[in-house]
């Protein structure tokens, strides 16, 4: 009887493994086989010369460059908005907050982390409508999208900063205190440098989140064709939206190919960020082991 049960268990576990690996292999294989042929310089620059496009001399019409630049700008602006608040709140929760206020604040940030990205996008859109009534020049644009994305990644930044500080060995705090440093000095000169790799790995993961999100920017200003944005108040293109749009609106085989190329580029971008975060994380673990 228990023999049969053993076999069933093995069958179930190995079967699940096979299904997952198989599904992922088929997924990757399909994407690579369709996307790799599209990867050349015309994918990014279309029929525009590379130098002209990079110097913004001429507009790239049928290439991915504006979408790629749009995504990079979004990431940069969202980080610029979210990092100060994320680090500040993370430091407060780890170092200053009392027991009950910490529980309350973490609950609120857990709620924020759970809010679907489309709802964050809807919030960004509502905010635009609200602002537009007072300042007519504000319409859905790069700035609004970046701010909404900042709100999306904020809880991740807070959590990773808090964790990075809390997992530092207690001896660090005690030594600093014994040497006469006050709390602010300890945080600035001892704890933050020690926690830097952990905090950085959280930031890198947040970048990945901002790079891949489509729902937020769909409601707050991304468009199919805008070129490289010239100001914060312009609409813009972005890679994930390009992919979404290519799937539904392609009119010929070549446009579809570019969609696959874009999907592959986004996957590579996210993969690189992911590996970077993992390397940083590994560094942290090694250092924590060394300390104990």
């Amino acid at each position, binding site marked *: 009887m228990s023999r049969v049960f053993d076999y069933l268990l093995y069958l179930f576990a190995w079967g699940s493994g096979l299904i997952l690996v198989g599904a992922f292999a088929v997924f990757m294989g399909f994407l690579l086989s369709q996307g790799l042929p599209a990867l050349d310089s015309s994918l990014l620059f279309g029929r525009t010369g590379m130098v002209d496009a990079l110097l913004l001399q001429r507009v790239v019409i049928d290439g991915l460059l504006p979408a790629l630049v749009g995504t990079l700008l979004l990431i940069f602006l969202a980080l610029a908005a979210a990092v100060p608040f994320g680090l500040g709140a993370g430091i407060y929760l780890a170092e200053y907050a009392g027991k009950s206020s910490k529980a309350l604040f973490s609950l609120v*940030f857990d709620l924020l982390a759970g809010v679907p990205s489309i709802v964050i996008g809807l919030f960004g859109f509502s905010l635009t409508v609200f602002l537009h009534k007072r300042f007519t020049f504000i319409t859905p644009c790069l700035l609004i999208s970046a701010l909404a994305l900042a709100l999306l990644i904020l809880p991740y930044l807070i959590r990773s900063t808090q964790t990075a500080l809390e997992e530092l060995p207690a001896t660090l705090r005690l030594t600093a205190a014994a040497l006469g440093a006050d709390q602010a000095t300890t945080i600035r000169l001892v704890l933050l440098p020690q926690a830097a790799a952990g905090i950085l790995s959280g930031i890198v993961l947040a970048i990945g989140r901002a790079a891949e999100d489509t729902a937020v920017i769909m409601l707050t200003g991304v468009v199919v064709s805008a070129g490289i944005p010239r100001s914060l108040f312009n609409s813009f293109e972005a890679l994930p939206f390009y992919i979404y749009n290519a799937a539904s609106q392609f009119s010929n085989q070549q446009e579809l190919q570019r969609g696959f190329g874009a999907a592959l580029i986004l996957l590579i971008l996210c993969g690189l960020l992911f590996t970077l975060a993992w390397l940083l994380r590994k560094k942290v673990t090694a250092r924590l082991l060394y300390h104990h």
Partner: protein
Amino acid sequence: MRPEAQVSRILFLAATVVGVLLTLAILWFMVRLGLPLFSTHSLRLLLTQDWAPDRGLYGIFPFICGSGAVVSLSLLLAFPLSLGNAVLIHLLAPRHLARILYQMVKMMTGVPTVIYGFVGIFLLVPLVREWFSRGSGMSVLSAGILLALLIAPTMILVFLESFAAVSTSHLRALEALGGTRRQKLVHVILPGARRGIITGFLLASGRAVGDTMIALMVAGNAVATPESILDPVRTLTAHIALVMAADFDSMEFKTIFACGITLYLWTAILTLSLRFLHFKATKTSMQVGHEQSF
């Protein structure tokens, strides 16, 4: 405290308070903008009626069902799949194979959801269409399968973490008594990791409820309430994305705030259940603290 230290403390507190206010502002904005809807339509009608703007019906019931159907199917597929993979990685697979599998699962958590949707349209949807030779292939089934792939890695990682946290003293005791790997799993690991398993399930369901792109791209977006898993459906998230194009002052447009509030509350309930689960966990672990200290 020196004034300088006082200033940095206040700055950190301010950052925290801004975050909290923004979280509350999301809900406030949606309620505020959705209010005109509640003055003409009762909440009950809104939640139970069909969606047929041409007949003056603006109910979001079909979309709640749509989200429910897609999410349930994805959990139904992903839960056993994840449990099997976690058992394989933790217990059964040879060490180096387990490590490779673990790395693959970790990598999968980084795949953008729009790419799952994109590949789904050109790979899975045609397959579903051919297998069942019914409809366009855009269906609860297609979306459920892709969502399962999206959420399984999250579940597997949480399961593995909870397997690893199971008390080693019990495992050692069982080994000393000559227990098999199956006995280890069934009598020690699974009961010990019960809370972690529920956590993984709840976290993954939150992700499934909140995902927009997969449902939007492969579920078909039909406005009728689904009757079979081969029917096309529209989820709450997809409805918001689709109606955005409509005119701001229309009734259609206002319903997306009802969808937004529903999603906010749905995920909030999941977050609160997780909290409750862990609150109970800390209480019991304080009572049996001596055992945990190994």
